[in-house]
């Protein structure tokens, strides 16, 4: 089984990223694109682009029938879903399987197993992976109160079909629970079409640590180390790094071993990520969920191991055995990734589409930029606001953070407001530099950012002293 031509069912930087991997592997690329993206960078880099529908993603990137039809009609033998959109929808993986196309990812069954968070919790428990004290399924507010009394407040209500923070509520005392239950249930119902909730203990001083996994079709599963993604805003990751700072080697090995055990238990194939919540006070970790796709933040793991995870996805999908054993994976140095979004941080991170007039990214050793943007590109209003991922490497964490700070200063974008000023601010915060990361750090430092923040125009002029310095 070989892959000669692949249809890429995605857009933006990840479409570019997948095309780059194909170029290295000698695989031809067909890009499924929406009308809004037909002139965008991925469409120009792909060997062929097929416009599969209107700009709205429900009419294009979420239409698995159109994607399978386009793949078949253009002679593709495989489909790569990227992340988001249909990447974790069993419908596309199943349709590919029944149409004789290789899906570059896990099977539809793997997605179904891990897609329902209650079922995933049970699987984790069966694999001996610690789960947060809590319940399977909460039927009513009265049930919720009973479970909460047992495990102790604060507790968190979560949606069984959930993701992205919707349908999630933290409850600190009994009186608030009935209202929160009703609200979370309604939110989950409208967001995911399934109002089912479950309840877990809420960890106040939490970090988000996740493990990158690779599994082949022969039952081999290895990990490519862990990442810390604690810097989040509204449950969306903002800064990621590898390895996770400030944890003991023993703990690191335990977390990675737990992730591998869970994936091996379900015969997981291709790239995936096991997410954990780490209780900084109790120094314990708990299973959160498993993501059955390549993730946005995969480059930090690539940077410290030298492994091209997207290329490995193709090799695994084509039926090859893993090319590495666990002992072959060598971790070296430290990598940090910042997500540069078209959002105005001073205005509550308001998304900000429009024409990019200046696009002058930083370059140089140990700086990587994954992007689909260029000067003159118009950021469409229909999709998420991510413009680029800036990834830097340093032999130590301190060196990586310092390089990131400089790189952000040298990154000049005009035309659309970006999160660069905020990212730059974070890189200079003592908590972050000291490795004192938590999922609440951004909320905690936000008032300081807002009081210290200057107008965007003033920020871009801040690169000028550096230019003077270079001329000397």
């Amino acid at each position, binding site marked *: 089984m070989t892959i000669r031509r692949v249809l890429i069912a995605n857009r933006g930087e990840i479409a570019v990223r997948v095309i780059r991997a194909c170029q290295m592997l000698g695989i*031809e690329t*067909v*890009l499924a*694109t*929406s*009308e809004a993206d*037909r*002139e965008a960078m991925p*469409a*120009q880099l*792909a*060997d*062929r*682009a*097929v*416009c*599969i*529908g*209107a700009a709205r993603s429900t009419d*294009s990137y979420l239409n698995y*029938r*159109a994607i*399978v*039809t*386009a793949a*078949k*009609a*253009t*002679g593709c033998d495989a489909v790569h879903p990227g992340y988001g959109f249909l990447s974790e929808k069993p419908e596309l993986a199943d*349709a590919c399987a029944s149409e004789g196309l290789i899906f570059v990812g896990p099977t539809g069954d793997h997605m179904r197993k891990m897609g329902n968070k209650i079922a995933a919790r049970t699987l984790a428990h069966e694999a001996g992976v610690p789960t947060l004290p809590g319940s399977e399924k909460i039927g009513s507010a009265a049930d919720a109160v009973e479970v909460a009394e047992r495990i102790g407040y604060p507790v968190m209500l979560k949606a069984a079909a959930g993701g992205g923070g919707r349908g999630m509520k933290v409850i600190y005392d009994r009186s608030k629970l009935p209202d929160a239950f009703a609200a979370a249930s309604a939110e989950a119902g409208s967001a995911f079409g399934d109002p089912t909730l479950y309840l877990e203990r809420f960890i106040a001083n939490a970090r988000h640590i996740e493990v990158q996994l690779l599994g082949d079709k022969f039952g081999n599963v290895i990990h490519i180390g862990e990442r810390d993604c604690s810097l989040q805003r509204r449950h969306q990751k903002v800064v990621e790094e590898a390895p996770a700072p400030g944890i003991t080697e023993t703990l690191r090995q335990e977390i990675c071993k737990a992730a591998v055990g869970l994936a091996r238990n379900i015969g997981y194939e291709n790239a995936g990520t096991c997410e954990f919540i780490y209780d900084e006070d109790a120094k314990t970790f708990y299973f959160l969920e498993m993501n059955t796709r390549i993730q946005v933040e995969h480059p930090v793991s690539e940077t410290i191991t030298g492994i091209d995870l997207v290329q490995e996805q193709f090799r695994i999908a084509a039926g090859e055995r893993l090319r590495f054993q666990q002992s072959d994976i060598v971790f070296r140095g430290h990598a940090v990734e910042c997500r540069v979004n078209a959002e105005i941080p001073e205005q509550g991170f308001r998304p900000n589409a429009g024409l990019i007039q200046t696009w002058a990214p930083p370059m140089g050793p140990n700086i990587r930029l994954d992007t689909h943007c260029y000067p003159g590109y118009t950021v469409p209003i229909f999709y998420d606001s991510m413009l680029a991922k800036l990834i830097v490497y340093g032999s130590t964490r301190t060196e990586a953070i310092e390089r990131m700070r400089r790189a952000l200063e040298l990154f000049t974008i005009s035309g659309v407001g970006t999160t660069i000023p905020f990212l730059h601010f974070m890189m200079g915060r003592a908590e972050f530099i000291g490795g004192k990361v938590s999922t609440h750090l951004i909320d905690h430092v936000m008032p300081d950012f807002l009081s210290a923040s200057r107008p965007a125009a003033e920020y871009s002029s801040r690169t000028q002293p550096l230019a003077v310095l270079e001329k000397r």
Partner: protein
Amino acid sequence: MSDGLSELKEEDVERLVRLIESLESSTFDYLHLEVGNLKVTIGKGAAPMSAPAVTAPDASAYVSPPPPAPVAAAPPAIETTLAGKHAADAAPAGTIEIKSQIMGMFYAQPEPGSPPFVSVGTEVKEDMTVCLIEVMKTFNAMTAGVKGVISEICVENAQLVEYGQVLFRVRPS
């Protein structure tokens, strides 16, 4: 074929051009003409050959024009084309484009063997079906959305058409 063409005088070529023009404005898809040992076949739209076929006097092997039946669906093109290039042909002035509302396989007729929904010269009304677009065994009927006469069929039967691709050109009435 080039040998045959070189035997044609300039006025023969002019006559052929006139024939092509009159076919273009007619309601016919094909013209097959035999005068002595000269055989000429001119086709349009979903033709077996994309360009009008001209056969020279020595075309003894040429029995009859191939029926306007579906061309054996070509294996998916190995050569790659760039996005949006299909729309590069400039539309003749005064025509309206009928664009595909969805991406899928284009079918000119309701089922194999039956006549096409429309041909060049067919008069269409807004709600008249002009083709089918198939997406994973689901056939979607597309209507003209405009009143007029089909002046050009821009795609071939059983071809993948993109969202927004020009399928027909219509001279409005």
